[in-house]
């Protein structure tokens, strides 16, 4: 690759029409959750912005995030991989292996120093000098630090890279940590989820490719457009929560009727993610829609916030002394609901704080 191409360059090179380019831009605008008035900006960005070379590293992970990535519907996986980014090093689907692959990756890092996007899937085991994950004869910790040096930005793909994930759950036998504990001084985007929703993953990559900058982030480095609300806030079963209509036991009458899963452990109230609004695979479903309580798989330390079927701490409901069991007895208006949600969030914070103190 001699020069970096913009998306429009690529479309021209591949003999794709202007019309198909524009259609892609419109689709992207939708995926990114931008308003239609932004379409001209997207088109302009896609015409001018060069495609960043992408390097995707794997540490302590299960490859579920790669699988999620290739499930993306809009944009389609093939379009992302072949037309929209230059995926130069990717062990799971890349053809090359071994020395040739390592050599190629080193060349890319040198040639595009300061320009490539580094995607990292998996946690970093730092115990015993990093020997629990050795790739190409070197520890993952070392390879990651090396690759991060020349990266324009780093994306932590999935909960393992963002927080440490399952291998970092108690007792964390390999002393696994989030990538942010190992690398610093680079713009970082966390895309947590176990795995993340495919379109969230490709959406963030596309945002960077199109606008040449990382999307607006919250205090935990998560893109606001995908992690700005809790699942509880956008859940289609929210009305049942507000009305106090709960599943009491799996496969009971409430389960069949699709009532709120809060009492059987749903973590929706503490789960910042797009499952409620976007759902999985262009709106097809998400765990709650399939009757399963959310386990907040995008939350930090969610693995140690078990047991999963135990409900979150009782919610103090405004204007009554009732717990969630009695929520149905009060008229739950929008304002009340907001306060209730706030109450839950505080309760969780409180619990976490207590746990932390206990640990110390």
């Amino acid at each position: 690759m001699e020069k970096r191409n913009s998306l429009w360059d690529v479309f021209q090179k591949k003999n794709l029409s202007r019309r198909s380019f524009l259609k892609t831009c419109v689709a992207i605008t939708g995926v990114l959750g931008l308003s239609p008035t932004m379409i001209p900006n997207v088109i302009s960005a896609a015409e001018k912005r060069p495609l960043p070379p992408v390097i995707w590293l794997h540490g302590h992970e299960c490859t579920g995030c790669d699988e999620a990535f290739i499930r993306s519907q809009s944009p389609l996986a093939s379009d992302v991989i072949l037309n929209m980014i230059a995926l130069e090093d990717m062990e799971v689907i890349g053809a090359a292996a071994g020395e040739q692959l390592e050599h190629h990756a080193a060349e890319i890092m040198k040639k595009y120093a300061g320009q490539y996007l580094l995607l990292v899937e998996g946690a970093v085991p730092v115990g015993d000098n990093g020997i629990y994950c050795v790739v190409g004869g070197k520890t993952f910790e070392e390879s990651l630090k090396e690759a991060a040096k020349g990266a324009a930005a780093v994306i932590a793909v999935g909960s393992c890279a963002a927080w440490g994930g399952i291998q970092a759950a108690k007792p964390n036998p390999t002393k696994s940590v989030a990538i942010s504990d190992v690398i610093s001084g680079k713009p970082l985007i966390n895309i947590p989820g176990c795995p993340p929703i495919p379109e969230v993953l490709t959406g963030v990559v596309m945002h960077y490719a199109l606008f040449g900058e990382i999307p607006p982030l919250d205090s935990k480095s998560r893109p606001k457009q995908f992690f700005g609300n809790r699942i509880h806030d956008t859940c289609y079963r929210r009305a049942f929560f507000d009305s106090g209509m709960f599943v009491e036991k799996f496969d009971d009458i409430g389960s069949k009727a699709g009532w709120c899963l809060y009492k059987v452990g749903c973590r929706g109230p503490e789960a910042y993610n797009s499952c409620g609004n976007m759902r999985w695979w262009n709106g097809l479903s998400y765990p709650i829609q399939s009757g399963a309580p959310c386990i907040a798989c995008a939350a930090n330390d969610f693995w140690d916030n078990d047991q999963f079927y135990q409900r979150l701490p009782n919610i103090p409901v405004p204007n009554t002394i009732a717990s969630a069991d009695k929520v149905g007895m009060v008229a739950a208006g929008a304002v009340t609901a907001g306060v209730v949600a706030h109450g839950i969030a505080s309760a969780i914070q409180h619990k976490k704080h207590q746990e932390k103190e206990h640990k110390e």
Partner: protein
Amino acid sequence: MKRIVVDPVSRIEGHLRVEVVIDEASGKVQDALSSGTAWRGIEVVCKDRDPRDLWAFAQRICGVCTTVHALASVRAVEDALGIEIPKNANYIRNIIFASQTVQDHLIHFYHLHGLDWVSPVEALKANPASAASLQNTILEKYSLPFSGPIEFETDAYPKDFPKATTVYYKEIQAKIKKIVDSGQLGIFSAHYWDHPDYAVLPPEVHLIAIAHYLNMLDRQKDLVLSHLIFGGKNPHPHYLVGGMSCSISMNDMNAPVNTERLAVVDTSVNLGITAVNYFYLPDLLAIGDIYAKAGLLDGGGLAKERVLGFGDLPDETYTGTSNGSYHKNLLLRSNGVVENFGQGVANAVYHPFEPKDILDPNVITESVEHSWYEGDADIHPWKGETKPKFTAPKEGTKTNWKYLDENGKYSWVKTPKWRGKMAEVGPLARYIIVYTKVKQGIMEPTWVEKMMVDQVDAVSKLLNLPPEKWMLSTLGRTLTRGLDAQVFAYVNKYFLEKLIKNIKSGDTTVANMVKWEPSSWPQEAQGVGLHEPPRGGLSHWVVIKNGKTANYQAVVPSTWNACPRDSKAGYGAYEMAMIDTKVKVPEKPLEILKVIHSFDPCLACATHVFNAEGKQIAVVNTDPFK
């Protein structure tokens, strides 16, 4: 003599390194080692958790084998607690399993293994008109006319069908040309595209296969829509101890499962059948026929000597695994060990393998002679010493390896053995076991087993080779995986029909909640969950004490296949298959990648078992079934 290292082995799950010593004159592999180079410790993390949560933890062993470990886990916990799941839950789990098998095999063939056989560079040499014509020939010559019992055919016509027009192949070729010319090869970068094996197939086959590579990349997700409907997401759908959480109702607007949801699943199931019958199998058989005619049938290795399986697909629900109920109505009775298939099915030796055997310290053992742990005795997995002992490589340092030490320790994978011997697992193993059991009159075949035997006989006829000649090779491992996909495409439909019929009869139950509360559990209980996921025989083991997980163990397919050698039992399956492979260009070991990929390696699965702290994992020094 030349020592070649391939690390990382790409297009697999996890971190695998292989080293081969090649005699440059003959191309013969003199020695080969396989090393799992990462360990995460999921089972350690499982300890002390609520047994009802375990499926979520265990499932994260692997995201490629998603659902696989969750299913084995809930089966183990249900066995321990004596929970019989409802009929619907059994059907739904089998649908999730069958969808997974079809999708996993198809992705493996096109997107992980495919580029070992076909090349975008070769595709450029194709004549598009000839490719279109060849596509027609392939569809006519290389289809297998078998199907499962379908009572209600819902698919009006094959929605996805290979395009066999000149213009289509011209377009595809033009796009490939642009990619190659631009120098932006991306995922196609830096591979050995000039390897002579890419010339085995005519350019038109390359073009067709690359077109289908792209086509299927965008269709594979639609093969597992059942995971979204019944489990809410993929990867990592949600399970429930006691059944499933996706309640069924035709009376409620918001029910997780209703007619519309079943229609989504049905569409996906139908796609599985067409994708396998019109894309996957014809492409695979066409490539296989050319390779078989070219005499490229090496890489059989350990499969010639010994294969192992556990059996799966309970046709109806069962009361437990440990009590033998699970094995009583399986559609796929691949449980057993078959030795000596290399001498032909008549001379093959079948050994039964039952749940009680797994407890027997004389049947399953593990050795750590060449694994980074202390100890040298062969011991039952649940009595295993698990003190890590990471040692330096032969050349290089502990954190910067040149060559690993084949005479010392060199992998995080342990070496499991059956009666002191190595065994290969996977679709090939399933086919060998079922074929042997049926042909030797050991069992009357179910419809699944009959279809498997018919497929093997049909492929033998097509290739004009006896089964042991084509099956026991790199190609055979890949071909039987494709056959497996066809069977499971129909298994998918079969269980969806059973589910619908049962709902029609008035039964909408999906969960047995009688033993949901820990207060209803015994103080101490233990159980096993068996499964035959895409990569072969899997077992999960759980010990529950006072409502918590006291011990959790998984004996995983890729551990059997990827394990290091043993001074008494010989080489592991990957190692033997590599030694049984000829390499034409040592510094471009395409054949090594191909034979390793034929196992569909999953290293996160293989290397998750051991406790880094050097403590025994939970109660590993006592038999969990005492």
